[in-house]
């Protein structure tokens, strides 16, 4: 192959280096992802956390070159998957990776399945394309996959159309589709549980975890729910306005969050303790800044309860706090810990913030 190859960390499955993605709209250039670095090791679960519009999904779609171009454009960076830079590949060359080594699950199970085909046939089609099964074998295998994702009565469900299934069922079908590859390496789950209700969320996440161990694949879990992170992730990357703001092991990061944004996310989580004390659910005041008019300073300055003058002039450096745990904040390590947060600092809910 003509493209450049890298070998650095042997246990790295995917390494994203210095990725920048822009969208050219009529209003101006939306800087969706800025100089992002990301590493996923074999078999691990990496959670990518952040609010809506933080560039999580754009990052995920960039891996496979699924960004709609135009208006999107990958400006710089490399996505090294098993030693190959996927961004240097042409559409034709990247296609063999899609659905085989890198699979995706989407947020909206209601609209992510083709409405005019039976779900069994949709799975079978993928098997025929990637593994050369005959139609009959493929349909049989599709039923097995539906069974694997714990759909009851899979022989009958294979004959159902998507609109005849509930949301949870459809998400299971989506997972079955992603598993219809010979050797899944990386599964990208883009908010797989957002459209589902809470009990089913837990089932789907358990299923993903179970399958991950069974087929030994890495999982890039994109979510805005810190609860999901705590339950499932090995490592966490918190994104804000297209940049990384904090990364680290899941347990360490949740135990001692450092960046004010991570703090805010964790404080916005409903918990039994809070309900007992009859406190209102907290939110981070303000909204994500307009990605068109971003300056070269800390993107969180307009919402940060601890903001200082320097935050409005300089982009914060990476501050290493512990092994593998780092934050991009001028005052990382100097901020009060999660529980000592001044009342209402990150959790103000006055009229000015619409959250």
């Amino acid at each position: 192959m003509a493209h450049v190859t890298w070998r650095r960390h042997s246990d790295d499955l995917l390494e994203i280096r210095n990725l920048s993605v822009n969208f050219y709209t009529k209003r101006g250039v939306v800087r969706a992802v800025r100089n992002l670095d990301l590493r996923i090791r074999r078999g691990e679960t990496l959670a990518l956390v952040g609010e809506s519009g933080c560039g999580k999904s754009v990052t995920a779609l960039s891996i496979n070159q699924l960004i709609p171009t135009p208006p999107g454009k990958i400006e710089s960076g490399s996505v090294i998957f098993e030693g190959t830079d996927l961004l240097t590949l042409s559409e034709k060359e990247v296609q063999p990776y899609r659905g085989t080594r890198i699979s995706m699950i989407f947020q909206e199970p209601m609209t992510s399945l083709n409405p005019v085909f039976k779900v069994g046939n949709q799975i079978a089609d993928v098997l025929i394309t990637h593994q050369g099964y005959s139609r009959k074998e493929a349909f049989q295998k599709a039923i097995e996959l539906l069974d694997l994702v714990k759909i009851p009565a899979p022989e009958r469900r294979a004959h159902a159309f998507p609109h005849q299934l509930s949301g949870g069922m459809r998400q299971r079908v989506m997972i079955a589709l992603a598993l219809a590859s010979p050797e899944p390496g990386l599964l990208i789950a883009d908010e797989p549980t957002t459209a589902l209700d809470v009990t089913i969320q837990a089932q789907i996440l358990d299923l993903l975890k179970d399958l991950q161990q069974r087929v030994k694949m890495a999982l890039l879990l994109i979510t805005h729910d810190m609860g999901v992170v705590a339950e499932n992730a090995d490592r966490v990357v918190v994104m804000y306005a297209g940049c990384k703001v904090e990364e680290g092991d899941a347990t360490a990061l949740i135990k001692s969050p450092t960046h004010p944004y991570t703090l805010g996310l964790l404080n916005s989580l409903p918990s039994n303790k809070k309900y007992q004390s009859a406190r209102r659910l907290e939110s981070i005041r303000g909204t994500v800044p307009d990605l068109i008019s971003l300056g070269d300073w800390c993107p969180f300055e307009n919402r940060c309860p601890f903001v200082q003058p320097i935050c409005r002039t300089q982009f914060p450096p990476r501050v290493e706090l512990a092994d593998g745990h780092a934050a991009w904040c001028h005052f990382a390590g100097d901020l009060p810990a999660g529980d000592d947060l001044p009342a209402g600092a990150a959790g103000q809910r006055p009229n000015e913030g619409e959250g």
Partner: protein
Amino acid sequence: MTDDTTLHIPEQSLFRETIVGLSKNKGAIAGLIIICLFIISALGAPLIAPHDPVRQVIEHRLAKPFTPSYILGTDDLGRDLFSRIVYGSRISLIIGIVSVGISLSFGLIIGTLSGYYGGWFDRIVMRLIDIMLAFPYILLTIVIVAILGASLLNAMIAIGISQIPQYARVVRATVLAEKENDYVVAERSLGAHDLELMLRTILPNCIAPIFVQATLGIGDAILSSAALSFLGLGAQPPTPEWGLMVATAKEFVTSAWWVVTFPGIAILLTVLGFNLMSDSLRDVLDPRLKD
């Protein structure tokens, strides 16, 4: 399983839903009956027609209708009108299928490529389509026939070509709407390439409006070919084509009303049948009108 809310999967497909929807619609039933009669007479013409459609019996010329030997009377050359109309349905059916076949296949290719790829290709193609649409439809058809020469086959080709813009537009619009759906990205993420996405993912979802357009198109094509034959640019005598029958008999309209009336009614009913059908199909297939 807590999410097992759909234990009983109702046996409903788009086909079945459509049939049920149509059976509740009076217009659809009327249209369907007309279309069925039309197709039966086209397929079984030799069995239904009592006489040879081109055999002239001069002593029986302009015989009055509603008699046992000539149900609808005879024309100025003594040919049985009923037999001619029955055989004419055969020609009309062929005209409908061939012209719609031509315009549909070109319209599908142009519309799908244009809608799927967009960009400069789409812009150029759509401006060409706009130019075609700027010509009055019948004028465009006449120009094409004039270039190709007057015959029934050329009339069909001309009608087919001049109908392409309508189909290309409908197909492009539906492809544009469908390609934004999540399942298209989802299937792309599963490794489907452009051709697969167009043919297997997007087009099956565009069938409803295309089908409606095609049904309407058959009626249109029959009407246009009658018009062309009437002008002498389509079927040539002694072909029992409805438009031609009206044209050749028009001088007897005052003395023998039936020679003009019955072929005219045949055209009217057939076109009405297809229009009723396509209207009802639109109602049944349009998801926005579903409850």
